[in-house]
């Protein structure tokens, strides 16, 4: 047999008649169909791929596929206007290195409180305290017993957290409430979705200053919730064990701008330094131990005016920053490549909430509260 010594294709040898048609896609093995479908956005799978044939329907409706799809999907941001234009929520995610904005097929009727694995916790418009969990990709929803709200101030917040060991979702409610002597105290209660019919108080040891209202920032990481308490300490709730612990925040950053943001797996602290750079710290949720991880050069962003970091994308690779005052433009900054991109919202940034969200097929089917 002749053998060519150069790298060019020896195509002119023995061209025989093609044995088959132009494509063999109908012989595609199931595992390749599985892999292709994993790449589709959740809404396309749910609205279209499930209707193609029974085999695809069965493949998609398995825990195996739903979990693989969730793991494969890149978390983005659910951005919602908080000034009553709730249905204008958009999803922002990095695809092919660029920020992409898409609308939700689902129309939110009230403020989004929290999101986890594609499940969104929000109020349900007819009653201010009624809660529902909805997957905006599949539009499936589940009503959740509202917490007891007597004596509770408006300063309350919610979270939804997945507990990997039990595969359960827990909804967490924190609030300030009046005690008998008219003092405000901080409280926390939670409910396991599909298991509990009432909210359970989480015991809080007196590990933090319990007086007067102080500033808190709430963040969620995998299996944990965090509240930064007046820039003094972080309260961390291990959602599985339902124990709250307190750890101090890194010292030496008293009079500088700083932000606490979830990186998904860990809580990060960004501190703006004098030389236009950020010190980035990370906290281990299990131990509360802080480590200074790296410095981020902020110089390329200096010409964009005063920016506020609002969230991390791509597991801490891309920082999303909102502009100040009346600007509608959000900036994204890749801390590795220093690439800067931006996108525009339909109202000023300050009117929006930013929640980490993944479009998924995760459902709470079969769970009834």
């Amino acid at each position, binding site marked *: 047999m002749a053998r060519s010594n150069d*790298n060019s294709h020896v195509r002119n040898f*023995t*061209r025989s008649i093609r044995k088959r048609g132009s494509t063999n896609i*109908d012989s595609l093995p199931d595992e390749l169909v599985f892999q292709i479908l994993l790449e589709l956005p959740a809404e396309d799978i*749910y609205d279209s791929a499930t209707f*193609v044939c029974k085999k695809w329907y069965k493949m998609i409706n398995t825990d195996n596929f739903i979990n693989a799809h969730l793991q494969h999907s890149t978390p983005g941001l659910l951005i919602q206007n908080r000034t009553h234009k709730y249905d204008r929520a958009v999803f922002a995610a990095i695809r092919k290195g660029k920020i992409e904005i898409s609308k939700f097929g689902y129309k939110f009727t009230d403020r989004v409180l929290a999101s986890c694995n594609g499940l969104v916790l929000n109020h349900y418009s007819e009653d201010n305290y009624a809660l529902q969990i909805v997957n905006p990709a599949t539009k499936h929803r589940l009503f959740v017993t509202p917490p007891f709200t007597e004596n509770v101030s408006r300063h309350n917040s919610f979270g939804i957290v997945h507990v990997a060991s039990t595969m359960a979702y827990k909804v967490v409610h924190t609030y300030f409430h009046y005690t008998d002597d008219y003092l405000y105290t901080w409280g926390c209660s939670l409910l396991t979705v599909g298991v509990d019919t009432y909210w359970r108080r989480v015991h809080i040891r007196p590990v933090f200053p319990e007086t007067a209202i102080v500033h808190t920032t709430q963040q969620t990481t995998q299996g944990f919730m965090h509240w930064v308490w007046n820039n003094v300490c972080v309260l961390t709730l291990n959602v599985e064990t339902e124990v709250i612990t307190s750890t101090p925040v890194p010292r030496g950053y008293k009079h500088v701008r700083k932000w606490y943001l979830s990186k998904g797996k860990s809580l990060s602290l960004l501190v703006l330094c004098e030389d236009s750079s950020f010190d980035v710290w990370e906290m281990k949720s299990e131990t509360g131990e802080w480590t200074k991880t790296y410095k981020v050069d902020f110089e390329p962003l200096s010409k964009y005016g005063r920016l506020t970091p609002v969230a991390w994308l791509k597991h801490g690779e891309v920082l999303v920053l909102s502009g100040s005052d009346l600007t509608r433009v959000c900036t994204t900054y890749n801390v590795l490549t220093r690439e800067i991109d931006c996108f525009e919202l339909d109202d000023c940034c300050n009117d929006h909430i930013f929640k980490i969200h993944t479009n998924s097929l995760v459902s709470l089917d079969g769970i009834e509260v």
Partner: protein
Amino acid sequence: MAAETGTPTTLTLKSNDDELFSVAESAAILSVTIRNMVEDGCAGGVIPLDNVDGKTLASVITYMNGISAIPADEEKKKSYRDKFLSDKDFETLADMVLAANYLNMSCLMDAVSAKIAQVMEKKSVGWVRRKFGIENDYTPEEEAAVKEEHKWTFEGVETDDDN
């Protein structure tokens, strides 16, 4: 088997429609299937690839040569893959995903799967069935049952079944 003299070793690949292609061993071993043959010493003569036709193999070899010429820089490799796949139609992509699977080239397979999904996005059910050569095996009753399950999805949405 690596050449002792330092001159690049060339392999000859044969498609299932009997076309012959020569390709540098260093590029061809991106395919785990071919690498195993080389390591087992079975790559001396012509390597028959029974599941890949000439048109697709030519394309895969272009990819092998292109990607192996790029040094270890994942970003550059990624942009090469994107560019390589950008002008391919659905039928070519379908042939390539089958070839990549048979040749065990995971990077190419991931990239082609993602590209196929990208082409499928926002397409109607009818389009997907046609392109994948799938018969609709739902009875009208079964289809109605799935729609009932998805009733939130279709609220206020005009159905566009074929396009």
